[in-house]
C-alpha cells in the first residue's frame, strides 16, 4: 500500500494488519493455541497449518527488574524469528508487590496475550502461586529455588551469584539462562542478545546465565522461525520516533504514568535526535510552553495522562482559537481521578473529543499497536502543522508500555514540513481568510511580519474584535478547516479491517484492543473494524467497512461504551457491547468467551 498524501510518500507495510495469511484464504491472520496437545505450535484457523507460538511469563517483586528481564526474554524470541508482544503488569509502588511480564512470540504478528503459559520464570513464590491457573499440561516452570518451591526446574540463584561474585540484580540473568536452556535455545543466541542488550557488566551477566544454562536440561524446545528479527519497541518509544519523523523539535512533559516512558525515552535520546526536552513545573506550564515553542516556529508535542490532561484543557482551547499547531499524547489509564495509575483503560475518548471550551477542529488518532503508533504519530505532527490544529495521539497503558515487533521495512517518512508558509509579502495577517480556512504561517523574527496570535475573538490580523460579523467569519474559517481535514484524511488508511472482512457479525473496536479483537475475530469468524482516526469521525470509510453487517458488537475497555455512543451519533447503531473496566486488558480467552455470549 502506498499513500501519496501530497505531503510525503509513505510505504505502508502491515499498518492495517494486512498480514499474509499462511494459506491465502480469507481471514488474514489466523492462529489458535491448542494447548492440550501441542503448546508451541498453533494452527491457522483457516488452513490448519501449524504456526509456531510461545508464551513466557517472568515474575518477581517490584525492584527485581522484571521489565528488563522480560525485554531480554523477548529479544531471545525475537532472535529466534518470533514476532513479539510483551505486556508488563505492575502495581503503583517502587519495591515489593508483584510484577510480571508476559512475553508472547508467534510466527505471525501478535498484539495480545494468551492466558495459558508455556514457560513460567518465577523469581519468587508469589509468581508460582499467582499464576497457577495459567499453566497447562506442558508448562515448563523455572524458579528461584532459594525463594520458591514448585514443580519444574529450580535454580539456586544465590549459589550462582556467590560463585560468580555477582550482585543481586544479576539474578535475572540466571533465570534467563535457565530458561534458554529449558527452551533449547542455542547459547550463541543468548550470547548475542546479552551482548546487544545488557548495558553494563555484560561478561559477568553472561557467566551467571551460563551457569544456570549448564545446570538445566531442555524440556520444551522453542523451534526457530523463518523471520528475521525486528526492532522491539514499546508504544511510547514508537510514538516518540514517529513524532521525530514528523519533525518534532521540542517535547514538553510532566511525568505521569503511563506517558512518562515517552518523556524518559526522548530525554535520553534528545541530543542524538537534536530535540529539546523540557519537564516544567506542572501540566499547565507544559502546554503553554509548547504553544510558545510552536509560535516560535518549533514543532512541539506534549504528553500526559487523563489527570494531567485536565490541566491542559484551557491551553488546548487556546491552541484551537489561536490556531497554533500542537500534538498531544494522552495515554489512558483506569480512571476516574487517580484511579489505577499503572493499569489500562479507554475512557478518555469522549473527554478528548470535547475538551476545552468552545468549538474548534481537532485530529484524534488511536493507534492499535507500536507499528501504527510510529506511523500515525508522524502523521499527527504533520496534520497539526498543515491545518494548524491540535492533534491527539490516544494510546493507553497497554500500548504505551507494551512491547511489539515493529516492521520498519520500507517505511520512510520524508517530512516535508509542508505547512503553508507566508509568501513574505507584507502585511502579514496571521489569520488571513482563505478558502480552506488555513492561513499562511510566519514566525516572530521573520522580516516585516508582525505575528499576532490571540485567544480573544480576533480579525485577520490577530487584533481583538467583538464585532458580530467578524466573529462569525472567523468561526466559519476555523470550522472550514474541519471540512478540509475530513477531505485531507481520506488519503490515509483511517479504518482497518481484520478478521473475516465479509462476515455479517462485526466487532467494532479501537486502540490497543486491535490485537486481541483481531485474534478473536479470526477464531470466531467475525469481521473486525478498527477506526484509527476518531476525529474527524471517518463516517464514510467506517460505514463502508461495516457494510452489510447484521450485528455490530462494540468491544471497549471502559464502562460506558464511548465509541459506541460516538458511532450512534453518526448513524451507526451497535447491537451489543462487550466491556472490561478493571484495568486489565482483555485476554484472547476472556474476550472470546464474552463475545460468544452476545453473538446472535
Amino acid at each position, binding site marked *: 500500500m502506498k499513500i501519496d498524501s501530497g505531503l510525503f510518500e509513505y510505504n505502508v507495510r502491515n499498518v492495517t494488519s494486512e498480514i499474509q495469511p499462511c494459506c491465502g484464504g480469507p481471514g488474514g491472520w489466523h492462529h489458535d493455541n491448542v494447548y492440550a496437545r501441542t503448546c508451541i505450535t498453533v494452527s491457522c484457523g483457516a488452513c490448519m497449518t501449524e504456526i509456531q507460538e510461545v508464551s513466557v511469563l517472568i515474575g518477581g517483586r517490584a525492584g527485581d527488574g522484571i521489565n528488563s528481564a522480560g525485554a531480554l526474554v523477548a529479544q531471545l524470541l525475537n532472535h529466534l524469528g518470533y514476532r513479539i508482544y510483551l505486556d508488563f503488569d505492575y502495581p503503583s509502588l517502587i519495591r515489593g508487590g508483584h510484577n510480571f511480564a508476559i512475553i508472547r512470540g508467534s510466527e505471525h504478528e501478535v498484539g495480545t496475550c494468551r492466558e495459558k503459559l508455556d514457560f513460567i520464570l518465577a523469581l519468587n513464590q508469589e509468581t508460582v502461586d499467582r499464576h497457577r491457573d495459567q499453566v497447562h499440561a506442558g508448562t515448563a516452570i523455572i524458579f528461584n529455588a532459594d525463594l520458591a518451591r514448585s514443580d519444574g526446574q529450580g535454580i539456586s540463584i544465590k549459589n550462582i551469584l556467590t560463585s560468580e561474585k555477582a550482585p543481586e540484580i544479576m539474578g535475572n540473568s540466571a533465570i534467563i539462562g535457565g530458561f534458554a536452556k529449558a527452551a533449547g535455545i542455542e547459547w550463541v543466541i543468548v550470547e548475542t542478545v546479552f551482548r546487544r542488550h545488557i548495558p553494563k557488566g555484560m561478561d559477568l551477566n553472561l557467566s551467571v546465565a551460563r551457569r544456570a544454562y549448564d545446570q538445566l536440561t531442555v524440556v520444551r524446545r522453542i523451534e526457530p522461525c523463518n523471520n528475521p528479527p525486528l526492532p522491539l519497541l514499546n508504544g511510547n518509544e514508537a510514538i516518540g520516533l514517529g513524532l521525530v519523523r514528523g519533525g518534532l523539535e521540542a517535547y514538553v512533559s510532566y511525568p505521569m504514568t503511563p506517558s512518562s516512558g515517552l518523556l524518559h525515552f526522548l530525554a535520553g535520546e534528545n541530543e542524538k535526535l537534536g530535540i529539546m526536552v523540557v519537564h516544567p513545573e506542572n501540566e499547565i506550564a507544559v502546554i503553554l510552553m509548547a504553544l510558545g515553542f510552536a*509560535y516560535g516556529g518549533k514543532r512541539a508535542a506534549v504528553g500526559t495522562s487523563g489527570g494531567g490532561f485536565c490541566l491542559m484543557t484551557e491551553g488546548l482551547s487556546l491552541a484551537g482559537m489561536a490556531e497554533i499547531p500542537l500534538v498531544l499524547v494522552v495515554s489512558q489509564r483506569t480512571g476516574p481521578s487517580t484511579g489505577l495509575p499503572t493499569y489500562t483503560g479507554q475512557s478518555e475518548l469522549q473527554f478528548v473529543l470535547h475538551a476545552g471550551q468552545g468549538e474548534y477542529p481537532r485530529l484524534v488518532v488511536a493507534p492499535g499497536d507500536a507499528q501504527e503508533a510510529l506511523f500515525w504519530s508522524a502523521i499527527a505532527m504533520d496534520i497539526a502543522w498543515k491545518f494548524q490544529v491540535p492533534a491527539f495521539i490516544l494510546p493507553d497503558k497497554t500500548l504505551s508500555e507494551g512491547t511489539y515487533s515493529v516492521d520498519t521495512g520500507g517505511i520512510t517518512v520524508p517530512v516535508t514540513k509542508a505547512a503553508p508558509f507566508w509568501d513574505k509579502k507584507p502585511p502579514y495577517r496571521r489569520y488571513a481568510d482563505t478558502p480552506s480556512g488555513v492561513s499562511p504561517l510566519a514566525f516572530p523574527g521573520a522580516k516585516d511580519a508582525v505575528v499576532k*496570535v490571540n485567544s*480573544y475573538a480576533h480579525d485577520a490580523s490577530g487584533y481583538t474584535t467583538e464585532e458580530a460579523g467578524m466573529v462569525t467569519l472567523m468561526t466559519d474559517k476555523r470550522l472550514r478547516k474541519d471540512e478540509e481535514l475530513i477531505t485531507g484524511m481520506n488519503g490515509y488508511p483511517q479504518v482497518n479491517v481484520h478478521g473475516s472482512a465479509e462476515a455479517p457479525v462485526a466487532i467494532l473496536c479501537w486502540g490497543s484492543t486491535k490485537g486481541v479483537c483481531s485474534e478473536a475475530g479470526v477464531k470466531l469468524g467475525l469481521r473486525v473494524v478498527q477506526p484509527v482516526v476518531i476525529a474527524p469521525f471517518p463516517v464514510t470509510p467506517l460505514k463502508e467497512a461495516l457494510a452489510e453487517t447484521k450485528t455490530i458488537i462494540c468491544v471497549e475497555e471502559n464502562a460506558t461504551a464511548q465509541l459506541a455512543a460516538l458511532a450512534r451519533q453518526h448513524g451507526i447503531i451497535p447491537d451489543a457491547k462487550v466491556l472490561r473496566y478493571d484495568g486489565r486488558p482483555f485476554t484472547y480467552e476472556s474476550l472470546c468467551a464474552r463475545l460468544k455470549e452476545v453473538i446472535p
Partner: protein
Amino acid sequence: MTGRELITDVQNTWCPGCGNFTIQHTLKKILAEMETAGRSLDDVVLVSGIGCHAKIADYLNINTFYSLHGRTIPVATGIKLANPDLTVICCCGDGDCYAEGLDHLIFAAKRNVDITVIVHNNRVYGLTTGQYTPTSPLGFRGKSTPSGTAEFPLNPLELMLASGATYIARGYTKKMDQLRALLQGGIAHRGFSFIDVLQICATFFPAADYYTPRVYDPADHDPTSFDHACVLAREWDYNSDARIPLGVLYTATFPCFGERMATKGVTAGEREEAVRQILASRI
C-alpha cells in the same frame, strides 16, 4: 521592518487616567530606541495575559501572543527556548501573575529564563470590575469582598528575591523616566528580569495620593547586595504605611536557562540516521 508605526489603529479602551497608558508609552519609546540602536523589532515579542493590562498586545505594533489569564510566563519561556535570538517581554497583571499563575513566575525566576516580566500592578482585577488581588491591602473592599478581605498582601519583591530572579525592580506609573530606565535595564539584562510597576487604576484603585508622597529612590543602594535588597524590599509590605523604595533593587549574573538547555542542532539526515540507529539497537 524599520521605522514602523509603533502604535496600531486599534481603538484604545483604557479608562482616562489609567496608568497603562504610561506603560505603553514607555514601551513605545524603548522600542523606538532599540530600533534606532539597530535592533530589528521583528525580533521582539510581547506576551500578555488577560486583563486591562493585556490590551497592550492589541495596541503595540509588534509580534504579540495574547495568551491566557495567568499564563504569560510559560508561553514566553517556550518562545525564548524556541528562538534565543528573540527579545521576549511579558506584560502581566497582578491578578494574572501573582494569583492565577504565581507558580510560573517563581519557576521562571528559579530557572533564570532570559525574559523580562513587567507586572502592571494596579492591585486590583481591573477588567473583571474590581476584585481584590494578592497585592490588595488587608481589608480591601472589592466586589468579591464587600466587607473587606481577610488576608494580608503578598510582597512580590520578597518572593522574587527568594526565588532567584537576577533583576528585580519596582517602578511607578507616575515616574515615567525612571520607569523607562527600569524597563530598559530589564530588557538589556541577560537573565530573568522582573519589574513590579505600581500602576494607577483610575477606576478601582486610584492610589496616586497614597503612592506619590511615599515613593523615593534609595540613595547609594548597591543592587548587587542581596541583603540590602532584602531590607529595601521589606521596607514597604504593600499594606502598612511606609516609604516605598523605587528603582533596581537587585541584580546578579548567572547562566540562563536557555544556555543550559541548548541542544546542538542536527540535520534532517543526521536525525533520520539517529532514528535508524535507535531502531537497530532494539533488535
